[in-house]
């Protein structure tokens, strides 16, 4: 590195102003450029004299990955500097402070915990969709825009599906931040997006209880303990944490990645639909597991070399989608419902980690009285929910991966499209009625969903019945 950063330095058109932050591996500077009006920051790695491999490779990884990311949850890159002169990355400056300041004030009220958790998961899902695993999630690496969206920074330990992993070749010890690092990262596995969900679970635990699930280990041997030792349940620390929130946190903190949420989108689904969560022993427990259970786990886990990992980020997202099934439960639609039922069962064979959201739409009148309560006094809403659950019986999924929603809208297609978008649905499955003149002029629900939904849509249609031809008819 020929030049060291200092206030007033001009490089590639950027002018350095005050130093904003000095960390262990890099300094952050406020910079301006004649061509950009956006506030910007420059990150310059602190490279020790002589050869400083880990810092250099970490920064190279960041220089490779950041320009490939886009969208609101990632800082926009304005420029990069050469190692021959001075290595740097210039990005837009996100106003405000990192989540670190929130975490210092933990425990936070439950409503705030849920909101922040959902927003962090949303940012995470965005980078996962862009084939990147962060692998170093911690409060310092989440910034919040004034508009509310979380921005993920610091990609020095990250992994991109489509790029060679320079870090795997460089390091022989586990990398990451000890309080949040996932068990498989301890085993030096760097290819599983569920590692990020574990770290997020540890962060939500901290935000809700004010304590870190595994304390602040300083030695690797202490990190290893999370392979068999379970954390104190959050409700044992703070009684007003709802059971469903504990369920979410402890599910994310499962040791085996296969038992955790399988995608950030599935975690967001639970954070935003808490009433649909089916509680298990995880949600109810108030004590750590008894010593005998921990001892048994220790015996098996201490020699574990690796967990089963997905082949790629894209493959994991593909095998764990959120499927939305929209069914019309009126009696004349029974054969169609049956066909949809068979189709969803077939789809689940290939995607064992899918979640299925079953949806039924009550079409409300554009004007006029509320139809939700019918003459007999039965609540239509409840009746439909019961019918929907009856229909879905036998779809071979554990309860927690099967949810039911009754939507009300004057426009059933719009209701399905909105619900799919709000819940990050990957694939919609629905039926289409047969052809008729009315539908040709007024348009069908399925046609509108196919045209306007942002995800894939599969439409099931029954074969048309053969028309009886009258031999005596003169045409």
């Amino acid at each position: 590195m020929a030049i060291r950063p200092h206030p007033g330095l001009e490089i590639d058109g950027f002018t350095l102003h005050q130093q904003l932050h000095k960390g262990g591996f890099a300094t952050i500077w406020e910079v301006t450029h004649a061509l950009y009006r956006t506030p910007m920051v420059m990150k310059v790695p602190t490279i020790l004299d002589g050869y400083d491999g880990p810092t250099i490779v970490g920064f190279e990884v960041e220089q490779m990955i950041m320009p490939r990311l886009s969208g609101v949850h990632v800082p926009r890159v304005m420029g990069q500097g050469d190692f021959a002169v001075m290595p740097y990355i210039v990005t837009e400056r996100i106003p405000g402070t990192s989540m670190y300041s929130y975490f210092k004030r933990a425990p936070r009220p439950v409503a705030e915990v849920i909101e922040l958790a959902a927003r962090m998961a949303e940012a995470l899902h965005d980078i996962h969709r862009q084939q990147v695993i962060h692998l170093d999630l911690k409060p310092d690496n989440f910034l919040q825009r004034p508009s509310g969206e979380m921005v993920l920074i610091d990609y020095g330990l990250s992994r991109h599906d489509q790029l060679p992993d320079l870090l795997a070749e460089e390091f022989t010890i586990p990398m990451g931040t000890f309080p949040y690092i996932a068990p498989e990262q301890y085993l030096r596995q760097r290819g599983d997006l569920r590692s990020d969900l574990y770290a997020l679970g540890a962060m939500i635990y901290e935000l809700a209880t004010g304590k870190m699930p595994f304390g602040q280990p300083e030695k690797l041997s202490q990190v290893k303990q999370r392979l068999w030792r379970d954390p104190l349940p959050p409700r044992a620390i703070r009684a007003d944490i709802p059971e469903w929130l504990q369920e979410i946190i402890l599910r994310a903190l499962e040791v085996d990645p296969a038992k955790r949420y399988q995608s950030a989108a599935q975690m967001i689904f639970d954070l935003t639909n808490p009433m649909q969560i089916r509680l298990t022993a995880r949600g109810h427990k108030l004590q750590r597991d008894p010593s005998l259970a921990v001892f048994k786990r220790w015996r098996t886990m201490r020699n574990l070399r690796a967990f089963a990992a997905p082949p790629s980020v894209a493959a994991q997202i593909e095998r764990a989608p959120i499927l939305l099934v929209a069914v019309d439960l009126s009696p004349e639609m029974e054969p169609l419902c049956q066909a949809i039922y068979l189709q969803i069962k077939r789809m689940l064979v290939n995607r064992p980690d899918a979640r299925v959201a079953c949806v039924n739409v009550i079409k409300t009148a554009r004007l006029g009285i509320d139809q939700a309560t019918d003459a007999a006094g039965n609540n239509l809403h409840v009746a439909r929910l019961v019918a929907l659950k009856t229909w879905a019986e036998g779809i071979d999924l554990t309860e927690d991966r099967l949810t039911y929603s009754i939507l009300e809208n004057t426009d059933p297609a719009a209701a399905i499209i909105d619900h799919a978008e709000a819940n990050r649905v990957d694939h919609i499955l629905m039926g289409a009625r047969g052809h008729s003149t009315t539908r040709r002029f007024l348009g069908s629900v399925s046609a509108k969903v196919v045209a306007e939904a942002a995800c894939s849509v599969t439409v099931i249609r029954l074969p048309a019945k053969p028309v009886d031809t009258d031999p005596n008819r003169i045409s």
Partner: protein
Amino acid sequence: MRLALLTDIHANREAFEAVLADLSQRQIDQLVFLGDIVGYGPDPGWCVDQLEALVAKGALALRGNHDRAVTTPDNVLNSNARRVIDWTVNRLNARQKLFLSELPLTIADGDTLFTHASANDPADWLYITTESTARPSFLVCDARLIFCGHTHRAALYSCDLAGRVGQINLAAGQTMPLLHSRRWLGVIGSVGQPRDGSTLASYAILDRDLNELSFRRVAYDATTTARKSREAGLPEALAQRLMKGI
């Protein structure tokens, strides 16, 4: 500026055509041929004519050991290779032979060096197959990017600020940013005689603006090439090789 890097075509017309067809669908500004247009394969005349026409339109081309063997006896070639060279000599006219003999061994283009086998001794036809055989190429020149062929297997090596040479595992279809903090040596896989277990023709795209390299594979009709090879009376092992990619 996007460059397509092709090497070791080895008189395989079908593979050469398939790669050119694939390139015509992509924005490519310049073609670079890293040598061995002839040898092993049954279509030397057609391939040399095609290359000559492309060079006339601005493509860069290097001489490989098989191209050299057409005009200068080479005792190092294996027996199959030598048999095919003896066969090839009689199928090239004087103009084609002159064209091959006038090709250069290396071309330097800005911060980039192109060579057929290695940078350290271009005329000695060394094979770069490991980190230790890649290191001398970085030592003898100061080019930031070095590209060669000759081994018939795609590979990528980098040399960091401390001079450590490491192999980067770059799968076909992936893109590697050629970071300025390192120097790079790309060994391009063979168009006409792949030897890495896949029968697909191999080449690479270098994007100068984005500073990225990617290895690509293209399917071609190897059965036809193998049939022509047998009909021409070339060694059976060479036809087998095309069908198995070994």
